[in-house]
């Protein structure tokens, strides 16, 4: 299950609640990424470094880079130790890295960031981070970036949660009944690139394919109400000598033909 959560990359949103906490799942995903050989960065805002690293062996701990925003996130002690730029600055610094390997960033927690930063700023930063590998024109190929975000559902309104949810490739909602935990997983398929587009005409019981002749006939068809340039020219420059249209009418016995113009008395 953990493999499938990490395979899509992008933002993985872990939604937990007071009764069903999600930090243990976050740590399990971090451990999985580290075992796959990825470099893992942790933006720790809610628990201390010791508490987060608890339960990991030393070889996993060596792969974890912990950015400490727990001890003094708001710089109340006014020492030089404060990391410049805050958590978002650290996030951008991680993405500016030069080595091309895949990287996993764990945000513990997104709720803390959402309470202290405007929602739009956070969403823009997350979008920039998780879509970094699809950025064209970059000289150095950058590896896959996975972002694991822990979100405490009850702390936020439907607006910010919905915004983060729409940014996420995968969403895991933790719940359960009577001591048995459960996880509801929602995967969003990534947007397909044009070259990989699936052909919709395959696997049908009827034939939607066109032969070469049929395709040519279809392409050369002029639609009756389509305003083409030829039609425009014909209307703008009426050809000389072209007779106006004639109406041939044979009156029968019951017709009352009056040659006078009935609208003569209209004063327009």
């Amino acid at each position, binding site marked *: 299950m953990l493999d499938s959560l990490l395979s899509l990359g992008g933002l993985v949103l872990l939604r937990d609640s*007071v*009764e*069903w*906490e999600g*930090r*243990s799942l976050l*740590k399990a995903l971090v451990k999985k990424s580290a075992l796959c050989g990825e470099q893992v960065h942790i933006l720790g805002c*809610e628990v*201390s470094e*010791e*508490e987060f690293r*608890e*339960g990991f062996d030393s070889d996993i701990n060596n792969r974890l880079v912990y950015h400490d925003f*727990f*001890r*003094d*996130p*708001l710089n*109340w002690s006014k020492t030089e130790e404060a990391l410049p730029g805050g958590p978002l600055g650290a996030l951008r610094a991680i993405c500016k890295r030069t080595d091309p390997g895949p990287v996993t960033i764990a945000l513990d927690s997104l*709720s803390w960031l959402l*309470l*202290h930063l405007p929602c739009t700023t956070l969403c823009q930063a997350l979008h920039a981070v998780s879509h970094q590998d699809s950025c064209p024109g970059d000289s150095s190929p950058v590896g896959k970036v996975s972002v694991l975000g822990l979100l*405490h559902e*009850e*702390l936020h309104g439907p607006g910010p949660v919905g915004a983060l949810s729409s940014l996420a490739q995968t969403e895991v909602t933790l719940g359960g009944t009577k*001591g048995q*935990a459960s996880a509801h997983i929602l995967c969003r398929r990534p947007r397909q690139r044009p070259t990989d587009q699936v052909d919709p005409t395959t696997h049908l019981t009827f034939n939607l394919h066109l032969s070469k002749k049929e395709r040519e006939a279809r392409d050369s068809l002029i639609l009756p109400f389509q305003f083409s340039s030829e039609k425009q020219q014909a209307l703008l420059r009426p050809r000389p000598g072209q007779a106006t249209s004639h109406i041939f009418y044979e009156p029968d016995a019951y017709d009352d033909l009056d040659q006078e113009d009935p609208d003569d008395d209209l004063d327009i």
Partner: protein
Amino acid sequence: MFVELNNLLNTTPDRAEQGKLTLLCDAKTDGSFLVHHFLSFYLKANCKVCFVALFQSFSHYNIVGQKLGVNLTVARERGQLVFLEGLKSAVDVFFQTQEEPHPLQFLREANAGNLKPLFEFVREALKPVDGGEARWTYPVLLVDDLSVLLSLGVGAVAVLDFIHYCRATVCWELKGNMVILVHDSGDVEDEENDILLNGVSHQSHLILRAEGLATGFCRDVHGQLRILWRRPSQPTAQRDQSLTYQYKIQDKSVSFFAKGMSPAVL
């Protein structure tokens, strides 16, 4: 302290866990008996206690404390108890000189910024004294109650930041404990209070929730207590245990029993 509650929580003053945040919350009832329990518990455990008392006066806690076997006046004189009496010192904010920021400095400000002066008061009160031998086991911060800060105009995020900094200093750095009371507004829609309650819930290791009975007032059963253990230290330990008991408050003790097993009914 209430011995029956100690049994339910499986703890005693001499072998209590350290570095833990306990959240007390009450809904449709008065949960202050839990505050009195923990105050006497930690004083008996020989801890250095910093009590930020915003809800009641010193004499109130002293009178109840004497019924539970602790003398707050003596504890304060010995230096074991640092007591911030919110009701009295709120007035001092206006009559004190401006040199050092008062813990309740936010009362003077038009838009209450942060609770940094209050945090610095707590840190100063609980920091270990250099030079002397350790008289006290570990520091404890007790707050009664946090919802009062919201009523005084502090934002929910500012209060959460204050709790965060206290947790980093008291629980992590000094390996002490914290006990916080937050009221649950229940049916009344109070977004700020909900954010505060849920925010502190996510940071806590133990949540004790006193609720009034759904059926209303009863002479023999005063309410229901829900106990939720969170964030176990070992990942393999049984997680998120939750227990529910009903209780009756008597003059000097509280008796707990399983739902429907009140002695008056049996």
